[in-house]
């Protein structure tokens, strides 16, 4: 999964408080694919399954989480030198809860329908492991700008994952995408897709796909390495 970044990991572990990262494109791109919170790190699963019964819900949730990720990351990063180690988790949680409350009001004010669809899961962003994890592992150690960029990347990666789930579930389970009917009247929606089991199945299917692609790539690498060794 990330054997190449092991030296970086070890180095980071060696001097955890002094290693500040330089801002590169990788800071942003990591969150999209290589360290995608949902597909790779399997974090923040609860909203992934619960609010992806339609594409618009998925997008809304993803963007809300991104906002909280960036906002809380920024505040944690700004205050990182002043937060004592012993109370850091409590501090992060309070900061995160603040931004979640703000985004809760914001969504309520922007769209009553979206607010009703997302329901309690907006407030549950607080316990989304991604955000707390990022605060602990990244925001507390990095400067403001890399934190913002990384947060954006992670948030977008999360949104991407949510959207891929939400769109599949909506298309198969409702025959629509963003409420726009895609198929004719003869299309019989696959109802289970928008019900809880469907969430599990679709996520499982995506992971299966990625695992298969990875396996295929590894086999090719092995095959070409083998050919090179012989040839």
């Amino acid at each position, binding site marked *: *999964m*990330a*054997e190449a*970044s*092991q030296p970086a*990991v*070890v180095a980071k*572990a060696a001097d*955890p408080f002094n290693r500040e990262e330089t801002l590169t494109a990788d800071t942003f791109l990591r969150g999209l694919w290589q*360290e995608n919170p949902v597909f*790779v*790190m*399997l*974090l923040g699963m609860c909203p992934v399954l619960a609010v992806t019964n339609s594409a618009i819900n998925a997008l809304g949730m993803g963007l809300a989480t991104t906002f909280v990720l960036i906002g809380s990351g920024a*505040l944690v990063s700004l*205050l990182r030198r*002043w*937060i*004592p*180690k*012993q*109370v850091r*988790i*409590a*501090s992060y949680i*309070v*900061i995160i*809860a*603040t*931004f979640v*409350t*703000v985004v809760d*009001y*914001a969504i*309520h*004010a922007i769209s*009553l329908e979206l607010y*009703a669809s997302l329901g309690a899961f907006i407030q549950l962003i607080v316990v989304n*492991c*991604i955000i*707390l*994890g*990022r605060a*602990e*592992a*990244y925001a507390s150690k990095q400067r403001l700008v890399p934190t913002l960029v990384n947060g954006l990347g992670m948030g977008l990666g999360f949104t991407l994952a949510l959207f891929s789930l939400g769109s599949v579930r909506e298309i198969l*389970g*409702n025959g629509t995408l963003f409420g726009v009917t895609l198929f004719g009247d003869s299309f019989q*929606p696959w*109802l289970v897709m*928008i*019900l809880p089991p469907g969430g599990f199945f679709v996520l499982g299917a995506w*992971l299966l796909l990625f695992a298969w692609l990875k396996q295929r790539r590894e086999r090719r690498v092995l095959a070409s390495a083998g050919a090179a060794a012989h040839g």
Partner: protein
Amino acid sequence: MSATLPVQTGTSAPALSPSPMPGHEYEQAPEQAVNQGANQAANRTRTPTTEQASARITARATEPAVEQAPATPSLAMLLTLGLIAAISGLLVATAYEYTAPIIAEKERLATEAAVLRILPGAVAKRDFVIDAAGRLAPVDPASGGANGSAAGGGGLVYAGYDAQGRLQGLAFTGVGSGYSGPVEVLFAYDPERQLIVRSKVLKSTETPGFGDKLDTDPAFLKNLEALDARLDATGQALANPIVTVKNGTKTQPWQIDAITGATLSSRAMGKAANQAAQRAAPAIQRSLTLLAQPSN
């Protein structure tokens, strides 16, 4: 940090949550499994949650040995927490102050839209609450009486008027428990004929494809075009409680024919209608003169 983590020993029970491949070992040779375990353990050092937890455990176990600043004085901790609490309070309070009026306005508009849609011909609405004497009393929607919006249960009664101020009908909400939770419905009521004439589901978590037929199935909706909600002789309750019956067995105008395959959802509609009518119809009938007056 990796030294303190439980290293994977090749069994299929990883102690740590984020790792997605518990069964991986079975496809590999033993030495690969050990490497895999080491890889995964190192991998997990990057995973945020384990870093956080392991850092805590490390900090607790090896406090004197870990190189860090001298133990932070309590004052510093309190100050920081205080600062964070202050910032946090400021942000939340500001957001609340800013959005509360917007939200209240949106909900008011949504309720108004729902009421005007269900009472064709109406262009304005007035809100009423059922007072202790069982009569309607006007209430100012801006003051947010009873949650402001079309709340279920003890909610408001809405009267719709046309441009000339003539009463077009009344609307009130009812709640009934369905297949997967409460179903909230807005009903349109004709006070002269004492009938429920239309329904609109406001909130429902019923199974899509079955429960949502409550709003779309034409045969079902016909039930609600002339649903008898007559009061009995005392004027305190309905002469015949509204009830949902099995599909095809409807004989009386106060019965609702259930949708086949969506019995519980259909029953929710019946319960909602009954609850709503029992609550609102007597009060409405007692306040007909008040309602007939154009806006006061």
